[in-house]
């Protein structure tokens, strides 16, 4: 493991400190926590608070999306480990303006349990709390009898949507309705060229040969659904898009937003080529996305790979939310 760090145990506190001190115009740290809130307190006045978070290692998610028009606070757990309820609770309290607090949780046992414990604590204090559990990763089959799907890059679009709505004065119930409506329209799937190395573990989560890729991996090196020899970008795109098509039934009469997400070690050069191939493949179906983002948004430390998110904009307002101006480090 070759990394620019000091010691593996200090990764999260030093990273959060570095981020907040680099961007004091957007962020401040809640004392004695690794939770981060907007420094522009005025922008939160009279609005529902929007809190997200999870394990670290997905930078710029989540803290990079804290700021006017997007998240009110983000809680940074240990690397790939859900933050603890006391820290989440501290974030809820810090953003509560009497209008309630909405939580964006990725669908992992740990995140769900810790956030819900924090919600219990907040509700005991009389703070109204609602939540959405994001599960946009279609690589894993959904089932009532399991944990279900994972929450991955589509979470960032959820942040954007809810952040814009909250900034325009949406109530706690309205945010819940919006989140529940939008969620089934967001589908993500990834391909990995290499796995992430958690600093405290010191070696990659899995090994891929020099010419191998794996479809359907998660953002914590959770294994995917198939391993193969590396293929040209356009064939990777064909595979991933066909999986999304099975779920979304892509259709030129609908409007779509597109998020192409680098996993950490994959350069923009490759992401733009991948984007070229996605846009070509969609064009075969006469689809031109009305909104596109390409870059490192929901990373997996130093994993090489890419994820593709398609968001069907079933309501015109959702496009406005995506285009709504924000003041954050990373959107």
């Amino acid at each position, binding site marked *: 493991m070759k990394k620019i760090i000091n010691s593996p145990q200090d990764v999260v506190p030093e990273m959060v400190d570095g981020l907040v001190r680099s961007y004091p115009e957007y962020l401040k740290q809640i004392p004695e926590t690794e939770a981060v809130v907007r420094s522009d307190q005025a922008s939160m006045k009279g609005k529902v608070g929007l809190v997200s978070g999870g394990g670290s290692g997905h930078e710029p998610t989540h803290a990079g999306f804290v700021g006017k028009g997007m998240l009110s606070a983000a809680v940074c757990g240990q690397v790939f*480990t859900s*933050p603890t309820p006391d820290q989440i609770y501290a974030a809820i309290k810090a953003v509560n303006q009497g209008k309630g607090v909405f939580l964006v949780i990725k669908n992992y046992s740990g995140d769900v349990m*810790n956030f819900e414990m924090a919600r219990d604590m907040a509700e005991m204090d009389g703070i109204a709390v609602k939540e959405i559990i994001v599960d946009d990763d279609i690589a894993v*089959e959904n089932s009532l009898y*399991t*944990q279900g799907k994972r929450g991955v890059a589509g979470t960032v679009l959820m942040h954007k949507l809810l952040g814009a709505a909250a900034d325009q004065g949406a109530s706690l119930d309205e945010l819940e309705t919006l989140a529940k409506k939008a969620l089934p329209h967001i589908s993500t799937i990834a391909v990995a060229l290499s796995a992430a190395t*958690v600093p405290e573990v010191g070696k990659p989560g899995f090994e891929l040969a020099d010419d191998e890729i794996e479809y359907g991996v998660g953002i914590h090196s959770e294994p995917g659904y198939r391993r193969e020899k590396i293929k040209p970008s356009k064939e990777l795109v064909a595979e991933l898009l066909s999986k999304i098509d099975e779920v979304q039934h892509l259709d030129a009469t609908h409007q779509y937003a597109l998020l192409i997400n680098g996993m950490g070690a994959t350069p923009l050069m490759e992401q733009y080529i991948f984007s070229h191939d996605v846009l070509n493949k969609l064009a075969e179906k006469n689809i031109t996305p009305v909104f596109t983002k390409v870059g490192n948004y929901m990373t997996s430390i130093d994993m090489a790979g890419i994820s593709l998110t398609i968001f069907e904009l079933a309501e015109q307002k959702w496009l406005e939310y995506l285009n709504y101006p924000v003041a954050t480090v990373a959107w």
Partner: protein
Amino acid sequence: MLTVELTKKWMELFYAQIDQEKAYLSELDTPIGDGDHGNNMKRGVDGVKDSLAKLKDPTLKETLRTIAMALISKVGGASGPLYGTAFLEMAKKCDESQEPAILFAAALEGIKKRGGAKEGDKTMVDVWAPTVKALTDGSFGTEQIKQAVASTKEMIARKGRASYLGERSVGHLDPGAMSSGYLFETFIAAGGVK
């Protein structure tokens, strides 16, 4: 009977065991999880050690509650709320009874409620549930615990990160089952059951 003395001794042994097996627990968490279970538990037992050291003449309830809060606020991930809830439920129950079988049964209920896992889902529940049963029917012991841990190997995971693997989770021990095994083994080693 669970006493403050016994609980402290137990936690010391559990601390030592986790410290020693940290890398192994993370290793178990690698093929079917995210490779952090050892680190998570280590942060937890470090927190437990620190918090207990600060208590002056605590009651059993205070002791268990302190352990719970340390686990909840230090571990994170899936195992933090689960172990934390387990000790919190024991703290709630211990005014009524100090019987291990009753306390662990309350803890198990808490774990199930918090995480929604049933027996056979390849989680720590697969160690807690048979062990609680064994405490009642008298079969409790190191051998029984090891067997419960081992039983997770052939299961298909339905909860936690391992569940994303479906059938491919078969053939691997569940890391949380293993750390729960350590918890019960150190309970015996501390003199928890004669």
